[in-house]
């Protein structure tokens, strides 16, 4: 679920196959592998980068780059999205295949899961078929050992004909050996034996290719296979790469037609080829892997029976969400209070300092009460919940719980004509909606992917649920104290999040019945084994990561927003300040939604980042009245109440925060992912309309019942 600077920023590139080297001597290494085999961990251990890791398939969706230095050689590592196959049935597979095929990688490391080697060998064999620069890295050796699974690496190396090394990347074991292998040159490749008719055709076509193509680092046998199992796009890609138009060659066409006359064409041919690869993998596995404990999955299934049980599955899910939120609320309260006092003490000092150095009043007021103050608000109110929630959620993610959520919820998504994997992208949305939108690539069907993207912002992201938490704390649990207070707070926040999830279902359903009509596509979801999370590492890295990320964003977004707000509040046309003018204009409409002009204005100005919505509201209110210093949440509550807030306003703000336009980063990402202005607009309109309707109805009902 993580949006880190590495997973979405400049360091992740997914277009183009050619990686630029800084030096001639630089070596490029591609990391391929099945989803969820610890590829990102290998990548991180080698590069020291913090590519977000988690225990679920499909976490890495873009090619990430990193570098490492070993024996005076600079290596550029490329983390390719995890795929089961290179036969290119999905977007990721295509990216992976094209990179291995046409990219300029000096070596391709295929990372395997030692506990599930047989299935992993499928991809290994397919990769070896393409090029002979492959190294096999059998990762998770320690986990295999615990499960009493023996992998004979030497025999595997002999059978595959490529270098093989065993690693346990999370502990850094075997990585040195892996890099040593990179420096060696490998030559041999294993040949998959196909059934006789295919094999005969392959021999003939390979002979033809030898005479027609000068030299290429692609395996001619593989090119032959792809010419038989014809795919227009790939063949034209290969033609470009080898500089010979294979598509027009009549000799090749003849071999293909002759094979087809024996019944091997289209589906049957592809199926037979896949079967041969799978059975070769099975043979190799039978010779190299010994399961000494046949019941090694026993414990996992026992846990699964509780977490996915008919009766306990859903309640446990809600309970876990509740526990995570409760810890967040309690912890954030303490840290917030502390940050408040420090940051606002510093504000006074800063102001005093500027007065001392005789800075003009206007300038220091802009700097202190505009820029600094919004920064301080963002840091003290918004940062603590994020910094606590994020590592906790990462913990669940590392355990392997998220795919179980998708498993539990798939039936409901199916009823909405959507994909169960949407639950995974929603979970990512908790971290950041932009990351959630990118994550939607794990959904193969374009229709279901669009639904997941459009509805992703119904999950309150890290920038929004601090809003939920602080408002709930101020307005609903203020009068009760102690454990009861935090308990009620947690319950309310959980309820609002569940409401967001229900809205996701509802809008997915409506979308799939209207603008995104279509058949439900196939669904397969791997449930990985549970893994012990590295608690210490998660907490440290995710807190630091989150903190730096939020601080970075605060400086980029909140500081300028503070400036704008201060100017709006202090520049007057006639007797009325600009901010009053704007909010006055929005007021009549906002009132219908249970908000007021200032709040709606804050949501509009908060487009670049939701973190700044509450700070803007506070700033605007403070500029209207006397400039008081707010030192804790209770004074903040008074400020809001003095500005006409009731519990109805509070609920309306929460509802609108849950359902309005996604932030500009998310919208930009949607535009990038869909390449369509239309779907970007739909993604903004759907949650906004839902929010307007829900707020309007809520307000109407509340006024009728309680007025």
């Amino acid at each position, binding site marked *: 679920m993580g949006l880190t600077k590495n997973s979405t920023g400049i360091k992740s590139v997914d277009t183009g196959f050619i990686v630029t080297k800084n030096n001639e001597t630089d070596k490029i290494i591609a990391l391929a592998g099945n989803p969820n085999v610890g590829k990102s961990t290998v990548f991180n251990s080698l590069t020291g980068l913090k590519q977000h890791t988690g225990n679920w398939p499909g976490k890495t969706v873009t090619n990430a780059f990193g570098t490492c230095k070993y024996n005076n050689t600079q290596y550029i590592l490329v983390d390719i999205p995890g795929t089961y196959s290179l*036969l290119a049935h999905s977007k990721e597979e295509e990216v992976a295949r094209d990179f291995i095929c046409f990219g300029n990688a000096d070596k391709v490391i295929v990372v395997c899961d030692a506990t599930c080697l047989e*299935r992993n060998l499928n991809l290994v064999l397919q990769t070896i078929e393409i090029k002979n620069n492959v190294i096999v890295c059998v990762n998770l050796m320690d986990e295999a050992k615990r499960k009493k699974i023996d992998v004979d690496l030497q025999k595997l190396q002999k059978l595959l004909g490529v270098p093989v090394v065993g690693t346990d990347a999370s502990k850094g074991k075997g990585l040195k050996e892996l890099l040593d292998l990179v420096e060696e040159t490998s030559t041999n490749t294993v040949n998959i034996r196909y059934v006789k008719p295919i094999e005969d055709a392959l021999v003939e076509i390979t002979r033809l290719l030898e005479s027609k193509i000068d030299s290429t680092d692609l395996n001619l046998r593989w090119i032959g296979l792809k010419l038989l199992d014809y795919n227009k796009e790939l063949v034209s890609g290969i033609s470009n790469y080898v500089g010979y138009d294979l598509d027009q060659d009549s000799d090749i066409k003849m071999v293909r037609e002759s094979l087809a006359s024996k019944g091997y064409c289209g589906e049957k041919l*592809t199926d037979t080829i896949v079967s041969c690869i799978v059975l070769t993998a099975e043979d190799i596995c039978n010779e190299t892997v010994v399961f000494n404990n046949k019941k090694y*999955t026993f414990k996992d299934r026992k846990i699964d029976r509780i977490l*996915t049980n008919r009766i306990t599955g859903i309640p446990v899910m809600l309970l876990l969400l509740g526990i995570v939120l409760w810890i967040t609320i309690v912890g954030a309260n303490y840290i917030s209070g502390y940050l408040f006092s420090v940051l606002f003490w510093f504000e006074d000092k800063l102001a005093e300092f500027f007065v001392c150095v005789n800075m003009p009043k206007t300038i220091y007021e802009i700097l202190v009460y505009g820029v600094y103050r919004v920064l301080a608000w963002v840091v003290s109110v918004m940062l603590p919940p994020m910094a606590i929630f994020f590592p906790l959620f990462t913990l669940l993610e590392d355990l392997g719980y998220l795919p179980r959520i998708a498993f539990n919820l*798939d039936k409901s998504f*199916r009823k909405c004509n959507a994909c169960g994997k949407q639950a995974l992208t929603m979970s990512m949305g908790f971290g950041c909606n932009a990351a959630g939108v990118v994550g939607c690539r794990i959904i193969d069907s374009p229709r279901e992917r669009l639904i997941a993207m459009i509805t992703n912002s119904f999950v309150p992201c890290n920038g929004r649920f601090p809003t939920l938490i602080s408002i709930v704390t101020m307005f609903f649990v203020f009068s009760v104290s102690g454990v009861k207070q935090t308990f009620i707070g947690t319950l309310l926040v959980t309820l609002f999040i569940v409401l967001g999830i229900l809205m996701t279902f509802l809008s997915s359903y409506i979308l799939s019945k209207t603008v995104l009509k279509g058949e439900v596509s196939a*669904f*397969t979801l791997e449930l990985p084994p549970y893994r012990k999370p590295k608690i210490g590492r998660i907490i440290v890295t995710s807190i630091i990561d989150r903190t730096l990320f939020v601080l970075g964003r605060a400086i980029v977004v909140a500081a300028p927003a503070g400036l704008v707000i201060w100017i709006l509040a202090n520049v007057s046309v006639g007797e009325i300040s600009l901010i009053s003018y704007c909010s006055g204009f929005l007021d009549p409409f906002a009132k219908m939604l249970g908000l007021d002009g200032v709040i709606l204005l804050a949501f509009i100005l908060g487009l670049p980042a939701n973190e700044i919505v509450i700070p803007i509201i506070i700033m605007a209110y403070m500029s209207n009245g006397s400039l008081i210093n707010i030192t804790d949440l209770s004074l903040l509550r008074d400020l809001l109440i003095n500005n006409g807030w009731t519990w109805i306003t509070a609920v309306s703000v929460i509802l609108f925060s849950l359902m309005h336009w996604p932030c500009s980063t998310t919208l930009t990402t949607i535009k990038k992912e869909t390449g369509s202005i239309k779907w970007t607009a739909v993604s903004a309109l759907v949650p906004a309309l839902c929010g307007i309707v829900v707020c309007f109805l809520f307000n109407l009902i509340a006024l009728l019942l309680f007025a």
Partner: protein
Amino acid sequence: MHNLYTLNDLDINEEGYVSSLVSNEDIRRRLLDMGLVEGTRVKCVLKSPGGDPVAYNIRGAVVAIRNEDSKNIFIKTNQD
């Protein structure tokens, strides 16, 4: 069709061997990639709260498949 069932007939802990896949192109590709070729042993390991999807052990990996898809996978009770 003696001894011939579909995958969704399996109860928890029951197993069978794939005899044929009559699924459409899209899903068949994916299942084949996961190693679900003819003759593969499949064991039913987990049912979700709503009874759909169901998770199967396929070549050492646990994979969830929806019933509407698994009813297109014919299995037999013994390997040959």
